[in-house]
C-alpha cells in the first residue's frame, strides 16, 4: 500500500466546534504552543485560544513521536518484542519491561523466583526515583528554578550507574526478562545501592529546602490546575496526578505484583488537587521508594534469578556445553520463540506516572497477535484542557509539568 500524506496545519474549519465563537470573529487569539517548545516536555503541540493571556480553550495535538510500536510488536516473538517496550516511556524503561514481562508470565503461567521478584522491585523503585527526579528537575526549571535541575540530574546519574552496573545499559536496560532476569546482579550492586540510599534522603531534604517554602515556587503552584477527585476519576487519571486530588489508589497496594505486599510503605495523598499537591506527593513518593528499596535490600533472598521452566526461559550459558537438551532448548527459544496459549491478558502496573497496562492477545503462536499499551501519560494528558481552562499561559507550563507526561509514552 503506498504511503501518501501531506502535512498541513490544522484549519480553523476543522476545529470550529472546539473553539468558541469569538475565535471565528477574531476577537480571541489562537496561539500555537509547541511542538518544539521546551516546556511541553517533548513534542507536544497545544493549540490555545486566548483572551488576553487567559486560556479559553486548550486543544492538545499529539502524535509527533508515533513510532508504531504496537504494530512492530506483532511482528516479533515475545522475547524480541520486549526490546521495543523500553523505547516507549523512556524515563520508565524498567517499569515498561516489568509490565510486559508480568503480562507474558500471566499469559503463559510462568513462575518467577523470589530473588528475581525482589530485584525487580528494587530496580522498579530506583526507576521511579529517577523518573521523579527528571520530573522535579523539569518542573522546577519551567518555573525558573534552575539549580534544582542540575542537582536532580546529578542524583539521577547515580541511579543510571546502577542500571549500567547490572545490565550494561544506562537507560534501555531490558534487564527484566519473561521468567526472571537476564542474569544475577554483580557483587558491587549491594554497595552501590546502599551508597545511594545512604545519602539520597538528605538530598530530598535539600530539594524541599529549595522549593517547598520558596514563595516564588509556592505562588506559581498553589491553587493552579485544581482538579477534584471525582473529575480526576471521571477522566481516567491515575498515578500521582490522581492521588494529588486525594483519591487513594495505587496498584502496588490494591493489586500487588512482584511481591509488593511484603513491603511496608505508605501511599501519600494530596488534599487540594493542585500543582503543589502533586509536587508534594511525588517528593513523598521518592521517600517511600527509598523505604521500599531498603526493605527489599535487607531481606533480599538468595537463589536463582530465572525460572527453571526451560520451555519458556533459555538455560544458562554454562549448561550449553554439557547438556544436549539445554542446547536444543536454547536453539528453539532463540530461533522460534515459545508458543503462548490462545487468549487475552491485561496486566497493569504502577508506573511513576500512573497505571501502565499491557494487553496481550495471543493466537497460540510465538508472536503476540495484538499488543496494546494503556499508557498513563495518554490518559492524564486528556484531562489537561479541563485543568488549563481559565488559567494564564504561564500557569499552563506549571500544569503540564505537574501531570508529568512523557511523549514517548503517549504516542507509542
Amino acid at each position, binding site marked *: 500500500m503506498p*504511503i501518501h500524506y501531506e*502535512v498541513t496545519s490544522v484549519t480553523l474549519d476543522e476545529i470550529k466546534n472546539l473553539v468558541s465563537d469569538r475565535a471565528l470573529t477574531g476577537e480571541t487569539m489562537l496561539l500555537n504552543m509547541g511542538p518544539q517548545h521546551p516546556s511541553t516536555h517533548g513534542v507536544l503541540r497545544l493549540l490555545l485560544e486566548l483572551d488576553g493571556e487567559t486560556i479559553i480553550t486548550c486543544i492538545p495535538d*499529539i502524535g509527533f513521536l*508515533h513510532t508504531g510500536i504496537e504494530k512492530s510488536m*506483532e511482528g516479533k516473538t515475545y522475547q524480541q518484542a520486549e526490546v521495543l517496550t523500553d523505547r516507549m516511556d523512556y524515563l520508565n524503561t524498567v517499569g515498561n519491561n516489568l509490565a510486559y514481562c508480568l503480562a507474558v508470565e500471566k499469559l503463559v503461567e510462568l513462575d518467577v523466583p523470589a530473588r528475581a521478584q525482589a530485584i525487580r522491585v528494587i530496580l522498579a523503585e530506583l526507576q521511579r526515583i529517577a523518573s521523579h527526579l527528571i520530573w522535579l528537575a523539569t518542573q522546577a526549571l519551567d518555573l525558573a528554578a534552575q539549580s534544582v535541575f542540575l542537582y536532580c540530574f546529578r542524583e539521577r546519574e547515580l541511579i543510571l550507574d546502577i542500571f549500567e552496573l547490572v545490565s550494561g545499559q544506562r537507560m534501555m536496560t531490558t534487564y527484566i526478562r519473561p521468567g526472571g532476569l537476564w542474569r544475577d546482579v554483580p557483587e558491587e550492586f549491594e554497595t552501590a545501592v546502599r551508597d545511594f540510599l545512604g545519602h539520597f534522603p538528605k538530598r530530598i531534604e535539600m530539594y524541599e529546602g529549595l522549593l517547598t517554602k520558596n514563595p516564588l515556587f509556592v505562588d506559581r503552584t498553589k491553587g493552579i490546575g485544581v482538579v477534584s477527585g471525582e473529575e480526576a476519576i471521571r*477522566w481516567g487519571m491515575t498515578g500521582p496526578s490522581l492521588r494529588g486530588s486525594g483519591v487513594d489508589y495505587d496498584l502496588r497496594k490494591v493489586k500487588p505484583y512482584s511481591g509488593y505486599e511484603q513491603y511496608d510503605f505508605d501511599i501519600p495523598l494530596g488534599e487540594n488537587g493542585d500543582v503543589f499537591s502533586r509536587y508534594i506527593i511525588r517528593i513523598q513518593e521518592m521517600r517511600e521508594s527509598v523505604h521500599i528499596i531498603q526493605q527489599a535490600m535487607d531481606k533480599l533472598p538468595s537463589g536463582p534469578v530465572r525460572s527453571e521452566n526451560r520451555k519458556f526461559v533459555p538455560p544458562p550459558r554454562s549448561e550449553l556445553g554439557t547438556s544436549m537438551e539445554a542446547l536444543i532448548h536454547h536453539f528453539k527459544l532463540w530461533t522460534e520463540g515459545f508458543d503462548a496459549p490462545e487468549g487475552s491478558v491485561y496486566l497493569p502496573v504502577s508506573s511513576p506516572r500512573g497505571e501502565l497496562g499491557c494487553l496481550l492477545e495471543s493466537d497460540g503462536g510465538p508472536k503476540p497477535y495484538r499488543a*496494546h499499551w494503556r499508557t498513563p501519560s495518554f490518559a492524564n494528558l486528556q484531562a489537561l484542557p479541563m485543568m488549563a481552562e481559565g488559567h494564564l499561559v504561564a500557569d499552563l507550563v506549571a500544569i503540564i509539568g505537574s501531570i508529568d507526561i512523557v511523549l514517548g509514552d503517549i504516542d507509542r
Partner: protein
Amino acid sequence: MGNNLQTAAETIQEKYNGEISSFRDQITLLLSKDSIVEVCQILRDDFSFGVLVDETVVDYWRRKEPRFQVVYQLHSRQHDERIFLRTPVSDDNPITSSVVSIYPNANWYEREIWDLFGIRFKGHPDLRRILLPKGYQGHPLRKDVPIKVEETRFTFNNDELARGKPRAKD
C-alpha cells in the same frame, strides 16, 4: 470473581444476550454493538464501574467474522473489579456507537481507534486522526497492512531508495 462483578455479568448476560468467558481470572462479556451504550450506562450507574480504563480494537482479519472486536475495560473503584466488554464490528460497515457520553475519556481512545483501525464512532464529538498526520491514507494497525521494513541504503542503491521514500509535501 467478586459478588458485584458476578451479578453485573449475569444481569448483562440475561438482558442483552451476552456471552461470558473467563481467561486467567479476567471476565469478558461479548455483546452486540447496538447495546454497548446501554450496557455501559447500566454498569456505570448500577454496578459502580465508574472508570473506563482502556478502549482498543483487535483485528481478526480472515480469522473471525465479524472482523473487528472493540475491547472496553471498565473498573469499579469501590469493589476493585475489572470487566472487559467486547463488541464485534464488521468490515463492510465499520461503525459503532461512541461511549463518550458516558465516559468522557473515551474521546481520545476512540480517536485512536479511528486513526489506527478505521472504525467510526456514532455520536463522537471530534473524530479526527490523533496519532498519524492529517491526510494519511489507510489505517496501519489493520492486519491487512503489512509490517514494513525499510531497506538499508548503500552507496549503490541510495538514489533509487531515496526516490521511492514518501515525503511530506510542502
